[in-house]
């Protein structure tokens, strides 16, 4: 990472952090918090799908696990919300490791891996929807009990800073990984598994570590969602929507780049909101925009928004963004 990139990251985070000081609009703050949660989920996706090249279509499995584990611990066992957060993240890592172990050991790659992750997420969704323990189709409602100890905040600004803290932590983890042996091995696995093996990379272990960390990050996003909206059901927590959001944000922002998920999440939802504002109440119009953006990105800008920006910048300054 160059000083140039570090500066951009600091500026971006600072700009988001001061937003609550500039506006008191609930709509604006809601928007930023929601986008930050998506960005965090996408950071998890990006580590596995972007850096390590193992595209998942089922990150809902981790998002939902984080949310459900935390909610169940709080509701059924009276566990503290912060402990629920830690447990949710740990379970996200564990579920990631198990899904990874089952599919990577069987040698699944590419679209086969993507389909299997989708299947796991769907199984979890159906189970959560069917079982009484998880609240069935009615979902789980956290008791409103504002206070720092309960991870519930009366002001949206405080929650925004909390979510931003998680996103910043995700950035730091991603940057750290990119600068280490583990990061180099992840990229080597993405680029060419056979060559990586020949150079002594334990491909299975590298992939398992990647999916566990990825699962933990996306599970953290799930817990944040729960604590912000205080309600989840199977369709929200394990629904395909969040798998798509995580994947889309990372791809639109710039696959494999540390800033990709944040840029992508803001770009997508910014476009979505703008479309809603202009097009009025045409139902689903923002989803049509997502689809259109995805087609455009895949066809014309495989490097995403950041890749596009890098092309526009003078050559000498281009190298800094790769991670």
């Amino acid at each position, binding site marked *: 990472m160059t000083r140039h990139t570090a500066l951009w990251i600091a500026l971006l985070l600072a700009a988001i952090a001061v937003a609550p000081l500039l506006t008191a609009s609930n709509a604006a703050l809601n928007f930023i918090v929601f986008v930050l949660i998506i960005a965090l989920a996408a950071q998890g996706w990006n580590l596995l799908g972007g850096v390590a090249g193992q595209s998942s279509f089922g990150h809902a499995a981790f998002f939902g696990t984080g949310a459900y584990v935390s909610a169940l611990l709080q509701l059924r066992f009276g566990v503290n919300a912060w402990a629920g957060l830690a447990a949710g993240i740990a379970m996200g890592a564990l579920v990631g490791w198990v899904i990874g172990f089952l599919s990577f050991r069987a040698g699944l790659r590419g679209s086969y891996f993507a389909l299997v992750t989708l299947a796991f997420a769907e199984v979890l969704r159906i189970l959560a929807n069917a079982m009484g323990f998880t609240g069935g189709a009615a979902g789980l409602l956290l008791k409103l009990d504002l206070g720092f100890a309960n991870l519930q905040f009366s002001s949206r600004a405080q929650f925004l800073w909390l979510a931003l803290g998680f996103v910043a932590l995700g950035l730091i983890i991603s940057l750290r990984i990119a600068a280490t042996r583990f990061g180099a091995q992840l*990229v080597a696995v993405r680029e*060419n598994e056979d*060559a990586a093996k*020949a*150079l*002594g*990379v334990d491909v299975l272990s590298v992939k398992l570590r990647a999916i566990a960390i990825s699962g933990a990050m996306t599970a953290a996003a799930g817990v944040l969602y729960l604590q912000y909206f205080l309600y989840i059901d199977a369709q929200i927590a394990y629904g395909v929507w969040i798998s798509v959001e995580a994947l889309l944000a990372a791809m639109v922002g710039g696959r494999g780049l540390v800033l990709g998920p944040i840029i992508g999440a803001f770009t997508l939802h910014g476009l979505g909101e703008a479309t809603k504002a202009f097009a009025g109440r045409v139902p689903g119009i923002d989803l049509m925009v997502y689809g259109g953006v995805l087609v455009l990105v895949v066809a014309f800008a495989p490097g995403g928004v950041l890749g596009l920006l890098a092309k526009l910048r003078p050559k000498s300054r281009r190298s800094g963004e790769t991670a």
Partner: protein
Amino acid sequence: MLEVRDITMRFGGLVAVGGASFSVPKGAIVGLIGPNGAGKTTLFAVIAGFLTPTAGSVRFEGDDITAMPTHRRAARGIARTFQIVQPFAGLDVRENIAVGAYLRHASASEAHRRAEAVAQRVGLGADLDKPAASLTVAGRKRLELARALATEPKLLLLDEVLAGLNPSEIRDIVPVIRAIRDEGVTILMIEHVMQAVMNLCEHVHVLAQGKLIAQGDPPSVCADPAVVEAYLGRGAAERLRLEASHA
């Protein structure tokens, strides 16, 4: 150092390698030659751990490594290059070589330092910041060599590192390979470029249709009628001998 015993590799009904046995002594440059489709690359894949043989065993420094996974063989000191070059296309040359160097060095700065040193050694010093995808064929072959070397191997398996190079490029890289051996790395190489085989190898094994048909020093192997026939067809040795005597 390396001992290959009765290796048989069968793919369905096709016997790619049938009962091949040979050994590579420490510090040698040994050649493995043979016509196309003889099973040389298959044998390499078995030695490097990419394929598990149907029968037979591979021993390295006295230990049976037949069932050892590839990455652990690399850690033991066996490195290979690929006949069809496999660069990490999205990475630059330094990062490509560093992946190999990371095997023995956990720190990024040390791995990059090693990568630069290895690049100098194989003549890629000027290309460190270039994307691997932008290298010429000769450059990619050097990159294969550099990455394998960066793992600091005891045994280096070179699969046609000279194929596709022009004569002057071959002249440039032959001394590099000899220098690697002189620093104590044992080399087993598959090669079609006979000029290089004659030049580099002390001992040559000839594989044809999955069987080892001859071995010895390069000149005597080239004169072996069985070898000539394996390359040029039945009766070729006799015809060549006759033509030579008439001339």
